Structures are given as C-alpha cells and as structure tokens.
C-alpha cells in the first residue's frame, strides 16, 4: 500500500526523486481521508517553492486541504489532467494522480523527509 521507493511527509505528501526532479503527490491515507476529490488547484509552472510551502489545494465536497511541498525548488510541470478529472487522485494517488514536478534546488532539505517504513509507523500512531 505504501510504495517503498518514495519519500514522505507527515502531512501525507509523497515525493519521487528522479535525479534533480521530484514528482509530488498525496498519499493513499490523504485521499482516503478527503473522500472523492472534486477540485484540484494546481501550482503555476515556474512557481518557486520552499519545502513546506503551499503548493496546491485539493478539495472534496466535505473538505479543502492544502498540499505542502515536500521539496524546495521550482515547479516545472503540473498534471493538467486533474483539472477536469480530480478523481484520478482517488483512483491512483501514487501514479496517474501525481500533482506536479519540481526541479529541486536544495537537496539538503530532503533529509527532512521520511521513508516508507517511517511513514507506515507514523500512520499507525495516528
């Protein structure tokens, strides 16, 4: 359920690090808590963001939730498919439901992220 190769935040975002690029999304726990998403506010391409900065907003009919950036860098691509079909996040949060790609400018802050095992332990404690 929790992919081993990703890094996580305690706010339930994930980051897939591919060289200098991070692909960002929200975890299965997050999408499950929100219920069916009806709207995703994507970040503008070119936006510079710090780790823990507000990156996107995901909304279901019951709640609006901020998505915080797991990394520091610049947004280079946003998943435009989510504008018309936000439910993709519910269906495939670790795959087709990715939110954006960020060019990492400070690799140092990656050490603040937790791995799959730590995230799993964290979830159990909630």
């Amino acid at each position, binding site marked *: 359920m929790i992919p081993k190769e990703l890094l996580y935040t305690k706010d339930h975002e994930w980051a897939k690090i591919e060289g200098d690029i991070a692909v960002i999304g929200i975890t299965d*726990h997050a999408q*499950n*808590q929100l*219920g*069916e998403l*009806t*709207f995703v*506010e994507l970040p503008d391409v070119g936006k510079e963001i710090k780790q823990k*900065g*507000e990156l996107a*907003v995901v*909304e*279901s*009919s*019951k709640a*609006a939730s*901020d998505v915080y950036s797991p990394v520091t860098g610049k947004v280079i691509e946003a998943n435009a498919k989510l*504008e*018309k*079909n*936000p*439910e993709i996040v519910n269906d495939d949060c670790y795959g087709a439901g990715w939110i954006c790609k960020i060019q990492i400018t400070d690799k140092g802050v990656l050490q603040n992220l937790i791995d799959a095992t730590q995230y799993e332990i964290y979830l159990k404690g909630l």
Partner: protein
Amino acid sequence: MAEKPKEGTFVFEPATSSPVGSVLYNEHLKLTDKSHIAEFAGYLMPLWYSSIAEEHSAVRQRAGMFDCTHMGALEVAGPNAESFLDAVTTNNVRALQVGSAQYSYLLDAAGNILDDIIIYRREKEKFMVVVNASNEPKAKAYLAALNAGKAIIDLAKPDRRIKAAPVRDMRNTKSGPDCRVDIAVQGPSSPDVLCKLADTSVGQQLKNLKSFTFCQAKLASIDCIISRTGYTGAKVCFELFVHPKDAAKLWQKLIDAGALPCGLGARDSLRVEAGLPLYGHELAGPYNISPFEAGYGWAVKLDKEFFIGKSAMDKISKTYKMKVARLELSGEKGVRPVRQNDAIICDGICVGWILSSATAGTRQIAIVYMDKDVATEGNSVDVYYLARSESQVSKGRKQAVKKSEQINGDITGKVVSRFEKF
C-alpha cells in the same frame, strides 16, 4: 469581558468528556476502516462506508440506513405531559393525535432556539421527544430546570410556572424497561426492506403509514416504534426506535434485507440536497437564524395563548429581513466546490452567505442565508469563494465578506425551491 446574555437566556455549560462509540460502534468496525470514523456530538460515528456519493445515491434510488442511536430520545409522561409540552414547545401539542408526530422547537424565554425536535404522541399522557445528539445534554438540563421551577419562562410574568411532568432518558437502560434508540431506513425501496422482516399484516400497516405517523410493531421479532419520519428528503422514509440491546441485531437484519449502511457524510449531503436545516447552521448558530427565516414559521403557533419565547417570536415574525434559501450550482468534476461562509453576490453586492453545501450527482446544492427580497425562486446569484489557503490570501482573496460589500462573484447559481422531495 464576555457579553452578558439577553434576559431569559438559558445558560448551559456542557461537560467535556472523551467521545464514546455509538450503540452500533462494533457493527461499524465490521463494515469500514477506523479512519472513516470520527467524533460527532460526543460519539464515534461513521463518516462513510463505501463513498458519500454511493450512499447518497442508494437513498435516492433504493434504500439506505443510518445509525441515529446518538440522537436523544426523552419520554415526557403523566397527567401534565400535554400541558407541559404545549408550554415548552412552539407547535400545538394539544392538537397532536396519538400515533402522530410533530416537528417543533424548544425555545428559552429570550427566544433562543435550544433545539429543533420531533414530538411523538404514543398515548394520551405519554410522549417521546427526539432531540439532536449535539443538543441532548442541554435539552435535558433545560427540561429539568423547568420542572424544578429554576428557569424563567415568561419575562413579562416572572412568577409564571408550568406544572411539572416527569422526563425520562429513554436511551438509558437504567431508566426503565421501555428504552429506545433510533435507526433510520430511508428511500423508495425502504418499505420492501421492512416488509421482508415483518408479518403480512404488519407489512400492510407499514405501507399505509402516512408521513409523520407511527405504529408499534415487530420487525424480525424485535419490538419497534416505526415512524414515517426522516432527515433525507425521501418521500418514503422510516425511523425505527428499538431497545439498545436489540439495535445491533436489527441493524444486521436490515442489511440482510437490502438496506445499505450510510454514514454521516451522506446524511449531510442528503439533508442539504433536500433543503432541511441543521441546528447550528440553518437554525440558531452564528447568524442566530429563527424558525421564520428558516422557512418553518408554520411550526411556531403564535395563536397559542402561551409558549416559552412567544413574545420574541411574535416580534421576529414581523421584522425579519433575511431568509434561508436553496441554491443550485454546477457540481461537475473540476468545479471548485462552494463552502460554508462563501459570499452570495447579487448585482455586485454581498447579500448573504452559504450555511451548508453538498455535491449531489453533477450539481451542488447550497443552503444560504440571504436578503429575503432577492431570494426569489429562479433568480440568478453569484458566489464568491473565500480563500481556502494562505497562498490565496497573499494573492488577494478575502477570508470574509461583509454584508453589502461590493465584490464580484466567481460562479453563478440559481435560487431553487426552498425544499425538494425525492
């Protein structure tokens, strides 16, 4: 310094305690993940089992059922029961027939709504009063204070008293043998579900049961008060009041008979779609909304000689300027949902705010509080989305919009009928 409450206000400080599982908590754990269970009014209740949309549509198309065992059920009995309830509630209890139920309000002498309730007349001198879970401790304390002569009932006549009538908490199994908790079965095929658990004669009785009437009968050999009431806007709907020890058994029998368990999420989206008020949102709450503004003036009988809060209701009935209305907007995927407190805009001016909202299929329904003179069915109005995040605030999006403020809306909706039946 705290503002002094208006004279005649019933002041109640609820005790704080950690939430407890509802009577059906173990049944919920069999059906859904713990992460879908949340605290509501002091109880751990399911938000949804499968999905809100699926459960919502089950109630509209077939039959859904709800754990309402957290709702308060109080018995008021004895020779003074009728006169007590008639003085304490706004509707006409004297006109209520045995076997019928009545929507009503519990007010204090200042006219504050303490709760909206349903009164069931079981016998000439025996009533069941169903109160909101969130208001149950307050309602119990208020009735006890009235019975003890410790609450002001009439500001004009401070020595006015009502004859006491014993009040019993019917959910408390220590209060007597006849105990009741509520399970609701709602939707077009709910009679079929109940008939599977009933004798032929009972089945026929259920099919003939009219709205806001009830009977006492056995379902799956379990003694039930079966009433044609509900909170989903379904034309065909039932509430079953059973002894707490039988609740889990009946719950399972209802599942076997084809009712889909539904959580609080669908309960809310169904009542919003139907336009039904929720205490604290469309009644009382931050805007202190009165029954007249909410569209329930008919449940406040100003022609009664007396009821607690009557003078305040008299005044409001003649002076109110805003009302509760229902708004329909697009609910297609990718449309940002409207939310509580988002502003209602008419001709570039804020005329009110959203109280509750929900997605139902491809439309959103919002229940709004807005100027009475523009809340006409068919009128187009806009909604301004308040900021959902800090970054939106930094881009200039407002976190609150005041009445009469000039601002442009983001999405257009249409005022539709105050209520809708399904």
